[in-house]
C-alpha cells in the first residue's frame, strides 16, 4: 500500500517537476512571478484537446503545440513583460496577474467551464511491475520529463545562448556589460519556458481534464517546488517535484486529502523561513537580481 502510494507519488511528482522546470527557468532568469504560466498551460491543454478532436494524438500534438507556445511566449515577453522590467515590483506582479485573470475569464467565456478530456486506447493501460501498478501515460510523462530536463541541462551548459541565459540569471548588469543582449536572452528564456509548458500540456492531456482554472492548481504546486528545490537549480526542481508528489500522496493517507494544499504550503513556508535558497540552490541565490 505504502509502496504503491510512493510510486504513484513519484509519477505525479514527475508532472509537477515538469511544470516547475519551466517556471524555474522563467522565475530564475527574469525574477518575475509569472502568474500567467498556469494559464499558458491551460491554453496549451485546450490546443491539445482541439487537435485531438481533429484526430491528432496528444503525443503527436507536441510537435505543433510546443512551437506554438514558444511563439506565444516570445510575443508575450516582447510586448508585455519587457515593458515592465524596470518598473516597481508590484507592477511586474500585476502585469502577469492581470494577464492570468484575463486569460482565465476569456477561456471561461469561450470554452465554458466544462471539464474536457481526451479518450485514447492507451489511456487506462497499466504496467504491473513487482506488484505495483504503473499507469502508462504517467510513465511516458515521467520519461519525457527526464529527457526534456536532460536536454535543457545540456542546452544551458553547452550552447552559447545557454551560457548567456545562465550569466543573465546570475547578474543582469554584468552580463550586459559582457556584451550579452539581455533583452534577447529574456525573450529566448520566455519562449523556451512556454515551449516546455506546451510539452507538459500535451503529456498531461491523456491523464487529466482541461478546464479554465486548471493552470492555477499546477502553478501553485510549481511555485512550491521551485522554492523547495532552489531557484535556478534544475536538479532541485526535479527532486522537489518528486518529493512534493510523494508528500501529497502520503498526506492523503495519513492526514486528509482535502488538506493536501495546506501540507504544500506548510512545506513552502518552512523552506522560505529556514533555508530561502532551497534544497539545491546556492545560498544567497534568492537575493540575486533583486538589488
Amino acid at each position: 500500500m505504502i509502496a504503491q502510494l510512493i510510486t504513484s507519488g513519484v509519477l505525479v511528482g514527475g508532472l509537477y517537476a515538469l511544470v516547475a522546470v519551466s517556471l524555474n527557468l522563467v522565475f530564475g532568469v527574469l525574477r518575475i512571478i509569472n502568474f500567467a504560466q498556469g494559464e499558458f498551460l491551460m491554453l496549451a491543454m485546450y490546443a491539445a484537446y482541439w487537435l485531438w478532436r481533429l484526430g491528432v494524438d496528444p503525443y503527436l500534438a507536441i510537435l505543433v503545440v510546443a512551437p506554438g507556445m514558444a511563439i506565444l511566449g516570445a510575443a508575450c515577453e516582447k510586448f508585455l513583460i519587457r515593458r515592465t522590467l524596470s518598473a516597481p515590483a508590484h507592477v511586474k506582479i500585476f502585469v502577469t496577474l492581470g494577464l492570468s485573470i484575463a486569460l482565465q475569464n476569456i477561456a471561461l467565456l469561450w470554452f465554458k467551464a466544462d471539464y474536457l478530456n481526451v479518450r485514447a486506447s492507451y489511456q487506462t493501460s497499466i504496467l504491473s511491475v513487482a506488484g505495483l501498478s504503473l499507469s502508462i501515460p504517467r510513465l511516458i510523462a515521467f520519461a519525457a520529463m527526464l529527457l526534456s530536463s536532460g536536454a535543457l541541462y545540456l542546452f544551458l551548459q553547452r550552447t552559447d545562448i545557454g551560457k548567456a541565459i545562465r550569466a543573465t540569471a546570475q547578474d543582469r548588469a554584468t552580463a550586459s556589460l559582457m556584451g550579452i543582449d539581455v533583452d534577447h536572452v529574456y525573450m529566448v528564456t520566455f519562449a523556451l519556458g512556454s515551449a516546455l509548458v506546451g510539452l507538459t500540456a500535451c503529456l498531461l492531456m491523456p491523464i487529466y481534464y482541461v478546464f479554465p482554472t486548471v493552470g492555477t492548481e499546477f502553478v501553485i504546486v510549481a511555485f512550491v517546488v521551485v522554492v523547495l528545490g532552489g531557484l535556478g537549480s534544475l536538479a532541485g526542481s526535479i527532486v522537489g517535484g518528486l518529493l512534493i508528489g510523494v508528500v501529497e500522496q502520503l498526506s492523503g493517507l495519513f492526514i486528509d486529502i482535502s488538506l493536501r494544499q495546506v501540507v504544500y504550503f506548510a512545506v513552502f513556508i518552512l523552506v522560505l523561513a529556514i533555508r530561502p535558497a532551497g534544497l539545491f540552490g546556492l545560498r544567497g541565490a534568492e537575493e540575486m537580481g533583486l538589488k
Partner: protein
Amino acid sequence: MSGEFWLDLAVLTLVWAGIACAWNILAGYAGQFSLGYSAYIGIGAYTPALLASKYGLSPWIGMFLGALLAATAAAFISGVSLRARGPFFTLMSIAFAEVARILAVYFKGITNGSEGLMLELRPSWATLYFLDKPPYLLVAAAYAALMFAIAVGIRRSRLGFQLLALREDESAARSLGVPVLRVRVGASMISASGAALGGTILAFYTQFIDPDSTMSFLISVQPALDHDARGPRQLLRPAFRRASRCAPRASTQKHIGRRSVRSSRTRLRPPTHGDPADNARRHRRGMASHDQTTSRKAR
C-alpha cells in the same frame, strides 16, 4: 442610476479606502508587498459574524476580538517571514492566506465551510445590522477616517520613520539601532488589525460570508491595486481610484451577477513613480540631493 447604486458605491469605496490605508502601513511604509491580506480580512469578517450569530455577542465587541486575532496571526506571520525578501515575501504572504482560506473551508463545524454564513440579526445599531444602506455609509466613513488618521499618525511617529528607514536600507537602519523585529512585527500587527476591522464592516454590509468570496486571493489583490504603495499624502488618490473601480463593478453586479466582473475589477495601472528600491539606490549613489520625505511634501 438610482440612489441605491451611489450609496453602494460610496460604502464600498470608503471601506476599501480604509483597508488600503491599513495595508499601506506594511506594504507602503515598510515596503513589504503583501498579497495575503485576505487572511486578515477573513478573520475580521468571520470572528464577529460567528460570535454574533451563534452567541449573540455584539459585533462592537466581536470586531475588536477579530482585530486582536488578526494581530496575533500577523505577529506570527511576520515573525516567520522576517527573512524573506522581495517576491519571496509576496509568495509567502500568498501561501499564508491560502492556508487560512483552506482551513476556513475545512473546518465546516465552525465556519459552515463553502456553504457560507448568512447573517440574520435583529436590525439595530447594537447588532450593526441594518436593512437599508445609509447607516452603513456612516460606519464606513467613520472607519475610513479612523484608518486615515492612524496611517497619518504612524507616518509622523517614530515608528513611521523607523519603517521607512528599514524599507530604504535594512542594514543601515539596523546599524543605527532600529529594532528590526519589533518594528516589523508591530507594524504588521497594527496593519492587520486595521484590515480586520474593514473585514468586519464588509461582512455586516454584505450580510453573507463564505471562504471563496471573503478570503479569495483576489480579495488580497484589492488593497494593492487601490493603493500605489505610497505615503499617506496621497491617501485620497486611492479613494478616487476605488470609486472608478467600483463603479463598473456595482453596475455590472446588478445586471450579470457577481462572479463575472473580476476582470474589470483588476484593471492594470501604469507605474507613476520609481520604486522604493530604485530610490534607495539613487540615494546611496548620492544622485538624489534631497530625501524622499521632502520630495513627497513638495509634491
